């Protein structure tokens, strides 16, 4: 019917963040070798222990690559990546910035285009921002305000200089360098990222936020984020990402590690809008990311909220290791695949301690030729007496060329545990669309309304400004997608 063509037109909307910033950058030769790892480490003037850690990771990665251990179990298809045909480091020239005034104005304009004013406007919204451009963190706002509370929020490189003992203690403690293929790669070549440390008993007075931007061509981005929440502290952390439109695929292999001690809580939210490729599936970011949090302390809590609308391919399973007694893990996810995007995403909840609880709410939306899988593991260990998990996975299909798949894995080794799993798959009903249209609402608005309604449980977990942004993003990502 005419619906199909209209819907198709609707989703043809272009990616709004696809510009390239003309900025002078410093890169090192293409390819990956021990030498390259040494150069990166030297450029960052890193201590010996870190270089050694990187080298161990590099050798592990090289071995995995040689033995063909690149993971193939995910439901994603992509041509073989040539890890030698890529730049592993790119930094805007001009380093060591004392204040925002010294940041290349061209770079600041980029952030403005992205809607991220790095200036005092942030005081109004109360968000402290760290911005990572290609490989290097360029500016962190609100440092002083945070320092008053003893909070450390800075780029990873700076953290290595400022508080090496903290970094050394926790780096790799949740995601070891040899954890998986992409984590090993990241550990070898990670260039920058964000670091946050919340001292004992401190409730972080503002949202911490990092924006990641890939600008340079043929460059991989490998950032590393580490957040440590001491006893009784609380932090909410937001992460956003965009990249220019390019015909070739670019690799993004990040690692995020969270550590929560007794009674601490970390809320980690992501709005991921990497360039998804064009309508024919050309270009786009390969987003191969390892995110994991460890609830080390008793009654600690880690919650992941993600809205994934970008990337050509998403391979991502933000997980929780529930080690402390009575600790809580949450995963709230909206993933949207349109055109030829593919996503294999989900979570792992590893219950180790007694009385641990986890909740998984996953909402998958597929449109166009999008393919999407939910893959989630719930493991209840032998000592996890009285552990509970509740999982809910809902998929929404728009049109008949897309797909949604659910792969739940359950391993229960303690008979006192309670594990619940619910899954639904529905099509955006023609009846629902017609109902809205009969009330004068355009098809486009109706789709956006229905999709946002479908995701509501997850969106309401996001901080206010982010929720609004995420809603708009969902609408935009779907424009022209339904058929």
């Amino acid at each position, binding site marked *: 019917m005419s619906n199909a063509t209209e819907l198709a037109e609707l989703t043809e909307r272009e990616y709004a963040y696809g510009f390239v910033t003309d900025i002078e950058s410093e890169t090192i030769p293409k390819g990956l070798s021990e030498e390259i790892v040494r150069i990166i480490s030297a450029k960052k003037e890193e201590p010996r222990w870190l270089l050694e850690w990187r080298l161990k990771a590099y050798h592990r990665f090289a071995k995995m690559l040689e033995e063909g251990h690149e993971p193939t179990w995910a439901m994603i298809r992509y041509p073989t990546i040539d890890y030698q045909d890529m730049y592993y480091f790119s930094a805007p020239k001009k380093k060591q910035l004392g204040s925002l005034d010294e940041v290349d104005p061209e770079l600041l304009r980029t952030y403005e285009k992205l809607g991220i004013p790095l200036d005092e406007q942030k005081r109004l919204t109360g968000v402290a921002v760290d911005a990572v451009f290609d490989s290097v963190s360029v500016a962190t706002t609100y440092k002083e305000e945070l320092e008053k509370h003893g909070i450390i929020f800075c780029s990873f490189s700076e953290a290595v200089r400022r508080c090496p003992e903290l970094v050394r203690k926790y780096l790799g403690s949740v995601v070891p360098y040899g954890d998986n293929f992409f984590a090993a790669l990241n550990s070898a070549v990670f260039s920058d990222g964000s670091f946050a440390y919340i001292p004992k008993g401190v409730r972080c007075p503002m949202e911490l936020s990092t924006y990641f931007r890939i600008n340079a061509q043929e460059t991989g981005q490998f950032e590393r984020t580490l957040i440590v929440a001491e006893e009784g502290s609380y932090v909410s952390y937001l992460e956003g990402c965009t990249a220019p439109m390019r015909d070739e695929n670019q690799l993004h292999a990040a690692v995020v590690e969270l550590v929560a001690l007794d009674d601490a809580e970390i809320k980690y939210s992501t709005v991921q809008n990497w360039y998804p490729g064009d309508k024919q599936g050309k270009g786009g970011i390969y987003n191969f990311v390892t995110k994991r949090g460890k609830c080390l302390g008793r009654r600690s809590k880690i919650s992941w909220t993600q809205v994934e609308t970008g990337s050509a391919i998403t391979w991502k399973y933000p997980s929780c290791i529930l080690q402390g007694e009575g600790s809580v893990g949450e995963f709230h996810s909206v993933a949207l695949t349109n055109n030829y995007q593919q996503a294999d995403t989900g979570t792992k909840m590893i219950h180790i301690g007694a009385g641990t609880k986890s909740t998984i709410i996953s909402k998958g939306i597929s449109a166009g030729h999008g393919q999407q899988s939910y893959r989630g593991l719930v493991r209840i260990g032998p000592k996890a007496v009285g552990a509970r998990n509740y999982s809910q996975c809902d998929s929404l299909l728009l049109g008949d060329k897309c797909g949604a798949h659910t792969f739940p894995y359950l391993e229960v080794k303690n008979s006192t545990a309670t594990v619940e799993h619910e899954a639904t798959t529905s099509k955006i009903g023609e009846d*629902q*669309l017609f109902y*809205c249209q009969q*009330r*004068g609402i*355009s098809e486009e608005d109706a789709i956006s309304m229905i999709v946002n*309604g479908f995701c509501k449980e997850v969106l309401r977990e996001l901080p206010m400004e982010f929720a609004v942004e995420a809603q708009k993003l969902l609408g935009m990502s779907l424009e022209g997608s339904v058929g």
Partner: protein
Amino acid sequence: MLEIKNLHAKAGEAAILKGIDLTIRPGEVHAMMGPNGSGKSTLASVLAGRPGYSVTAGEILYDGRDLTGIEPEERAREGIFLAFQYPVEIPGVGNHYFLKASLNAIRSHRGEEELDAIDFLALVREKMKMVEVPEDLMNRSINQGFSGGEKKRNEILQMLLLEPRLCILDETDSGLDIDALRVIATGVNALRGPQRSLLVITHYQRLLDHIVPDRVHVLSEGRIALSGDKSLAVELEKKGYGWLETAPPGAEAAAVQ
């Protein structure tokens, strides 16, 4: 207002309407009755432009404009309202939010200013009273967990709010008890006026005790078999539809206007 000429229509692949002629003038209330499967709901769907229903011959003129090929939202904005027999649930979309979006879409089409949250709230509260819609219904997702009666009242609430010019009620009385029926009829009657027309589709005469029609038509096998005034509905109630098959040929001729 509405002029249907020799309308033939399909639902999916099945030919359902086989030559309907019907004229509804401004201010008139027409009742469409008939047995199950006679094409009543198909007629409502075709008028509203529901996907999956197609006109194969004839035409539908609304204010002299042929509706063929006009999108459903355009029809709605031009004042055609369908009160659904089975209002669909839309999880996560708040009823209040939906009604406001709907009203503002229609208002901006009419060249009127969109209502802000405060004005909308005042207006919707006033209409809610008319059909006894409880406050909490507005905060729930559209139709989700609504009882049958709540769904139907919500439909009439929307109609009161949007002030359409052609109201089509598709078996709004089905599944309602007497009290709910009266409430709904009160809402509908409040809308009657010289510039507004109603097409009331129903199985039963009891709704027509409350919403008194100017004309009554009986649909049978995709055609209007019989038309008359309100007394026809009473007669049907007594005799049932079986009687239609044996009706004198003269009665059918009278049906065509």
